[in-house]
């Protein structure tokens, strides 16, 4: 049952987006998020949506996957839409008892939900096209300048690497413990919620104990291989920016420029 698991939601591929440096993708994601909050007019939202779809098209991702990434938050999106529609101030369009729907409310609601959808889509695009391992490298590299102010860049990356390495191992172990406990008559599938949670204890306790033992052994093995923290450490894979990353950065810059002009351009010309 736990046999063939994929970590994260990486969708392997060979597209332009897959080949981009992870740092470029992470930074671009942040810039896009900022851009989402610059957007005001319908046109700028249209541009942002178009941008996301072009990028998704370039990454050659199945559309279904992209839609699925919105699924976990659809309740919040609908709620946002609803609250804005019914609480907006302005010209009433329709009224029933204490509920008033205003034009401004609808516009604001649509904008807010669009913002949420755009944020979700762009961050999913990052994780769809970047394997967790490469993502870790990118995060470490981006955080390294902040070491001076006490950001434990290497330690964070090491923790992520070890977590990625051991998630499959621990899942396998969980599977094994569940089978062993079932063989002794443990029942994991009946009873109410509290009962079921209680029934999980015979799985969790052995799992915790064995994880601590693993951690102990791993620490010793790492020490035996001269591990002494991030100091003086080199990397086999060095991240190098390529011409591709320049192209991506230009694309991002153009997008932000266009959005800025759409927002403030009018006033500039007015002066």
């Amino acid at each position, binding site marked *: 049952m736990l046999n063939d698991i994929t970590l994260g939601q990486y969708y392997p591929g060979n597209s332009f987006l897959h080949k981009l440096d992870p740092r470029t993708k992470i930074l671009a994601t942040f810039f896009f998020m900022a851009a989402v909050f610059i957007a005001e007019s319908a046109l700028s939202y249209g541009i942002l949506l178009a941008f996301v779809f072009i990028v998704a098209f370039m990454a050659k991702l199945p559309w279904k996957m992209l839609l699925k990434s919105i699924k976990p938050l659809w309740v919040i999106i609908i709620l946002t839409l609803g609250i804005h529609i019914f609480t907006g101030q302005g010209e009433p369009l329709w009224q029933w008892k204490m509920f008033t729907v205003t034009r401004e409310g609808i516009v604001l609601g649509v904008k807010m939900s669009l913002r949420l959808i755009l944020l979700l889509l762009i961050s999913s695009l990052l994780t769809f096209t970047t394997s967790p391992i490469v993502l870790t490298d990118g995060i470490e590299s981006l955080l390294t300048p902040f070491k001076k102010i006490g950001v434990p860049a290497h330690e964070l990356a090491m923790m992520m690497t070890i977590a990625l390495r051991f998630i499959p191992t621990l899942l396998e172990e969980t599977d094994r413990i569940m089978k062993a406990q079932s063989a002794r008559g443990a029942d994991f599938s009946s009873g109410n919620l509290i009962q079921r949670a209680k029934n999980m204890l015979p799985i969790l306790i052995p799992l915790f104990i064995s994880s601590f033992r693993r951690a102990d052994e*791993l620490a010793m093995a790492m020490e035996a291989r*001269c591990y002494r923290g991030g100091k003086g450490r080199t990397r086999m894979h060095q991240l190098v920016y390529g011409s591709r990353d320049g192209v991506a950065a230009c694309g991002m810059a153009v997008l932000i420029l266009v959005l800025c002009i759409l927002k403030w351009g009018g006033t500039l010309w007015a002066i």
Partner: protein
Amino acid sequence: MDSIISVQNLTHTYTDGQNNSVKALDGINLSIAPGEFVAIIGTNGSGKSTLARHFNALLTPTEGICLVNGLDTSKEENMWQVRQTVGMVFQNPDNQIVAAIVEEDVAFGLENIGVPSEQIRPRVEAALAAVNMSAYAQQAPHRLSGGQKQRIAIAGVMALEPKCIVFDEPTAMLDPKGRKEIVSTVVKLNKEKHITIVYITHKMEEAILADRIVAMEKGKIVMMGTPAEVFSQVELMNKLGLEAPLAAEVAFHLNKAGHKLPANIITHKELCKALCPSM
């Protein structure tokens, strides 16, 4: 010849929180020559793993000294040099692989000691080739078999180009196929790359391949010599709770029953030859 590992009067005492102390090693004297293949045997709790952990400064002596390539392991400043000279492969293959991709794991030790990036790749490739795992460089470790994982662990140590590798029961958790893979890899490293091997094991069929066998009990060395010398003392072996190889056992009992077989029979081949010389 200068020894690569030299242990003089080594004693190690474990102390727990309640001031109970256990003497795990008691006055050990041992020296291992470069290129030698030494097997350490003994029952559980005989102190063999504790001894091995002194060889790369994971533990330091309570009393006595342990010299690796002439460096005192108890001195902090020697620690990293010692760990590069003596690598260590542990029992559980799962718990010594750090990275989620094979080649990154092999590179781990090299990254730790600060080898420049451009030199890492050739050394990783050479190490993977030495254990016959080049084809798996891009795989995820959890998809490999136990024997393959253990070979990756060996490659991770090999990449550091150590003079000596300590194996702490490397085959205890493997199936017969994996066991064979590891044993042949170890022998190959010893014969072809002239790496000194210290091989801790419970399995006499593996110990038999060594140049020298060290048998331990209760923190002391009780027997030492070539496999033929050690294994032909079947009675003493049994008294230590160890089982001599089957051929040695058979020869011993035949001799006891009045047959006249030559001494020092420890392999099946030797036994066959002694029983049917015409074959």
